[in-house]
């Protein structure tokens, strides 16, 4: 296994990008990453693209070849592969790229993630999003994706005494961070009452507990560590990449207050990196719903089980806190173009570790972690990065 570094990053603004199509956003992010790494097209060995459901959002499959083509790489005939694992598509694409370089098969790969969600209406987008859960045994019976997370929230409140206010604070905190990110979909701070009084979506969760539908793309360039300094003075080393799966349906698990796949992937990642949760200064976690962030920070080992809500309320995950979570604004405020999300998380961590995160910079950040979730925890990817 070779060491692998991130040598280039690129992303689009996230939001309702009506003036841009899937091709435009995918290429904008990809070219920015290639430009950042100062690569020539001939140096790219392969492309991996994370995408959940272009087939249903824009009625276009075969999107990896499409992105390679419109990136001007058609005549280079590079292998271009699309990866799908619902919300974890981007993180998983990154992992495939990592494995390809670590194995020695490729020296330089581009990993992109893209989703164009706003060409369909909210009702259809909700249905497409729900296909990440068990269509036959959850969704058909009336469980929406927010409702599944609402049931997690209710149970977490019941078992651990987590309060509605603590859950809502995740949204307040992520909007605060998002207000410092010029690429975030939402750049306004909100207060606790705004979250608590928002229109209900799936009780106890309301509108401000749910990540929005978004268009957007993100890309990174991966390179064998021993060649990375040819391209950049600030290579960011991938210290660990781990992945785990679990039952597709939430109801098939004995405990819904914890994602076992997060725990397993985190354990593997910390073991690979020879690190502990307390070593991490900055993390991007999969807050597709507010409760998801509370599960994540507990399952990753940042806080004991049941203490995630309290820690959030105390500001331990806010900029200035013990472990800063979702400096980008997270899925909640930065936006959640599904296939792009896992790659965008790594783009944010790389910016933090390079010291290029502007107003939201966590001072002295050396080690960062990204946790990307598919469905209700049926796929989880954990990546640990370090300023080399």
């Amino acid at each position: 296994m070779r060491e692998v570094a991130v040598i280039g990053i690129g992303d689009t603004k996230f939001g309702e990008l009506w003036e841009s199509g899937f091709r435009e956003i995918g290429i904008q992010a990809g070219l920015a990453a290639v430009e950042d790494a100062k690569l020539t097209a001939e140096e790219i060995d392969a492309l991996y693209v994370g995408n959940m459901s272009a087939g249903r959002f824009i009625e276009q499959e075969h999107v990896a070849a499409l992105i390679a083509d419109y990136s001007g790489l058609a005549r280079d005939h590079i292998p271009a592969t699309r990866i799908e694992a619902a919300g974890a598509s981007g993180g998983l694409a990154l992992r495939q790229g990592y494995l390809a370089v670590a194995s020695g098969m490729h020296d330089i790969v581009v990993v992109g993630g893209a989703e164009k969600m706003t060409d369909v209406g909210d009702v259809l987008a909700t249905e497409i999003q729900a296909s990440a859960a068990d269509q036959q045994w959850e969704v058909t019976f009336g469980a929406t994706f927010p409702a599944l997370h609402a049931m997690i929230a209710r149970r977490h409140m019941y078992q651990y005494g987590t309060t509605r206010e603590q859950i809502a604070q995740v949204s307040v905190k992520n909007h605060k961070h998002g207000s410092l990110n010029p690429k975030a979909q939402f750049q306004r701070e909100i207060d606790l009452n705004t979250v608590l009084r928002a229109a209900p979506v799936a009780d106890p969760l309301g509108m401000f507990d749910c990540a929005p539908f978004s268009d957007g793309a993100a890309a990174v360039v991966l390179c064998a560590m021993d060649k990375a300094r040819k391209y950049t003075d600030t290579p960011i080393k991938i210290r660990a990449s781990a992945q785990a799966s679990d039952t597709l349906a939430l109801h098939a698990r004995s405990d819904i207050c914890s994602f076992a796949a997060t725990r397993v992937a985190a354990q593997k990642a910390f073991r690979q990196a020879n690190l502990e949760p307390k070593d991490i200064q900055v993390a991007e976690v999969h807050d597709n719903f507010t409760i998801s962030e509370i599960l994540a920070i507990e399952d990753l080992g940042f806080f004991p089980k049941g203490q995630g809500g309290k820690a959030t309320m105390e500001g331990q995950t806010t900029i200035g806190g013990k472990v800063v979570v979702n400096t980008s604004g997270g899925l909640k405020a930065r936006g959640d173009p599904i296939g792009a999300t896992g790659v965008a998380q790594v783009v944010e961590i790389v910016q933090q570790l390079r010291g290029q995160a502007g107003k939201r910079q966590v001072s002295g950040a050396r080690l960062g972690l990204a946790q990307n979730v598919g469905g209700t925890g049926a796929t989880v990817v954990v990546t640990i990065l370090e300023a080399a």
Partner: protein
Amino acid sequence: MATARFWRENPSRYNLSASRCGVCGKVFFPPRTVCSTCHRKSIGKMQSLRLAGEGEIYSYSVVHEAPSQYEILKPYVVAMVKMDEGVMLTSQVIDVDFKEVKIGMRVRTTLRRVGEDGPAGVIYYGYKFAPVK
């Protein structure tokens, strides 16, 4: 949805057809061909079983934003119910005031309409939950 897709799920949707591992006794719904604990040892030893239909609410939500199929039902209650056999099912809770729904509430399955293929399409039936009186 194609008619055949729903039709082949009817044994579980109508009759709560499940399976039990002949090695460790763990119950699965819908039926599975292999046990997630016993793996290869369970192959060929999974026994069919019909759930009795009673259980208690493990968690629930009142759904306000619903897909088109459930638009006319909203708001409605959806719950995860731990059946007495130990396996968990997800469906709607009906014939109840939302405020009375609680974790631990006893419910039993009842056969109801769960969906249809548009206004003139095939109607699908399956289980929902109602409080045990």
